[in-house]
């Protein structure tokens, strides 16, 4: 039978074309949605910027219902920064320790349950964390906060951080809840990055007389530093944007203070709580502007993360 051109024509060409269009459409849709979000929230927040100007970012007071309403985002930006910082400071050592323990130290039979357990914490809905924070953690913490204040109140820096505690819903409570929430994600990213350390690197260190700890610091950590920083930044982004859990335990009282045991408020929390009662166009615009601020902040964190990771990668390759 004679060979015809159709025998040689690839049968997969149609499938390839469909697949390419589908992925292209998906990618384009994501970009389009992102652009739409950026456009809408920028557009809707112009009103507040036109009336308040850049004072919106530097004004501490938030008095939307006053006779002469004042719209200042600073105390919410502050609260977001403080709670996210607490969360990172608490979660990073725990996560890295947990990741190193599961990958390097834990016996085989313990590894699987540990991984399953950390992953289980990740699937708890954030509102459940918030409720647990309100009904259990916050009341328990008052006593602890008071003790901390008594112990460290006179110390130079800690004294101002651990100030007088009046309630259980504080920056610190929100920070704690956020720390618990971001620990699983940082842990699982760190764990996966650590596991990419080639066995040959570990063997090389051990063969030079390294102890297990020296092998971890010498071979495992340099190899996984970049990826781990990426994981931490991802956790930071999550902590900044987390809404309902933080909203329930932060105390919803916009404050700027060094005292971590004081009630405060954060950007996502105020948007969630006050949107329903935001009747004036100005207040709505102010809340949307806070959403825009959060959006830009998380974008900046992500860019910083990418920069840090790629620099760490370059340094790991030794190009410094």
């Amino acid at each position, binding site marked *: 039978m004679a060979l015809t051109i159709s025998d040689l024509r690839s049968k997969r060409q149609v499938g390839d074309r469909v697949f390419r269009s589908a992925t292209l459409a998906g990618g384009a849709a994501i970009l389009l949605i992102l652009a739409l979000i950026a456009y809408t929230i920028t557009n809707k927040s112009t009103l507040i910027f036109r009336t308040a100007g850049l004072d919106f970012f530097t004004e501490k007071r938030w008095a939307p219902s006053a006779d002469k309403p004042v719209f200042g985002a600073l105390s919410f930006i502050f609260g977001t920064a403080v709670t996210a910082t607490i969360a990172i400071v608490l979660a990073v050592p725990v996560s890295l320790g947990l990741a190193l323990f599961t990958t390097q130290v834990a016996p*085989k039979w313990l590894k699987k349950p540990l991984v399953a357990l950390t992953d289980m914490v990740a699937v708890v809905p954030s509102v459940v964390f918030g409720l647990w924070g309100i009904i259990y953690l916050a009341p328990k913490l008052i006593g602890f906060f008071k003790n901390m204040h008594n112990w460290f109140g006179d110390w130079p820096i800690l004294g101002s951080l651990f100030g007088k505690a009046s309630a259980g819903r504080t920056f610190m409570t929100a920070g704690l809840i956020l720390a618990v929430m971001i620990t699983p994600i940082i842990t699982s990213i760190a764990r996966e990055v650590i596991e990419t350390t*080639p066995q040959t690197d570990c*063997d*090389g260190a051990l*063969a030079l*007389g390294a102890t297990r700890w020296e092998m971890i610091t010498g071979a495992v950590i340099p190899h996984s530093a970049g990826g781990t920083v990426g994981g931490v930044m991802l956790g930071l982004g999550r902590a900044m944007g987390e809404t309902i859990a933080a909203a329930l335990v932060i105390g919803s009282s916009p404050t700027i203070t060094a005292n971590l045991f004081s009630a405060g408020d954060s950007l996502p929390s105020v948007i969630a709580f006050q949107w329903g009662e935001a009747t004036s166009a100005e207040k709505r615009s102010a809340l949307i502007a806070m959403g825009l601020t959060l959006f830009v902040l998380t974008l900046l964190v992500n860019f910083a993360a990418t920069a840090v990771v790629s620099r760490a990668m370059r340094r790991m390759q*030794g*190009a410094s």
Partner: protein
Amino acid sequence: MTQDLDSRPVVGTSAHPGTALPRPQSQSAGDTPTRESGMVFDVTDLAVHYGAFTAVREVDLKIRPNEITSFIGPSGCGKSTVLRCFNRMNDTISGARVEGDLRYRGVDLYAPSVSATQVRKHIGMVFQKPNPFPKSIYDNVAYGPRLAGMSSRSDLDAIVEQSLRGAALWEEVENRLKSSAMGLSGGQQQRLCIARALAVQPDVILMDEPCSALDPIATARIEDLMQEIKTKYTIIIVTHSMQQAARISDRTAFFTTEVSSEGDRRAGVLVEYDRTDRMFANPADDRTEAYVTGRFG
């Protein structure tokens, strides 16, 4: 065969005072080793099991100082497993169990009081795939001395230069010590790994197929290097290349797999161990002859 056992040159100064293992130069100084034989390693009836599986059994070997000993044999014959007993790298594999008597300069390597970490400071290892750390050339070589507590910049500089010269790499890298080891060619990386091992001032260097990932030119450089450094070190090399074993080694051990008498599982055994020239010219065992002439394996 005659061995001038006292001709062993002194290798640097001891970087690890107070270890349980004797430094080579102190072997006659009355450390009361239990069975002084002048051998670097004295192996009696060694067997290694991974769980229920026996990888290798009935190995009896004496490794002489300042010689290159090569281990040859088909895949799965246990030659790498035996090599990894000498610096206790098998410890890192869970389920691995070592039986029999393995003495390093008279000291039982598997005695409970012997630390694997200390053993590895005396017995260095070079792996099949070049495995420099993702750090600078300098930091790779300085890694071992730093572990041993060396922190003085001038001491480190000296030992890095000395080790890189020892590994015939100094001329190629002296102007880029701070750049990444990952930027070196495969052959250079492997010589860097040798330099890294030399920097710990070991007594023995174990090499697990060090040239199998290298081209013939890089292989020749490593082989020349081995000849140069064997005056200072004892070298054991696992190789898949019979030509390499014939070219470089003083003695050769041939391993193969064999069905054990009690079970039906195959396990590695040591068939023959002799001077390399005799092994290749006039092997005593038929299996060795079949292997070295290429009729099997």
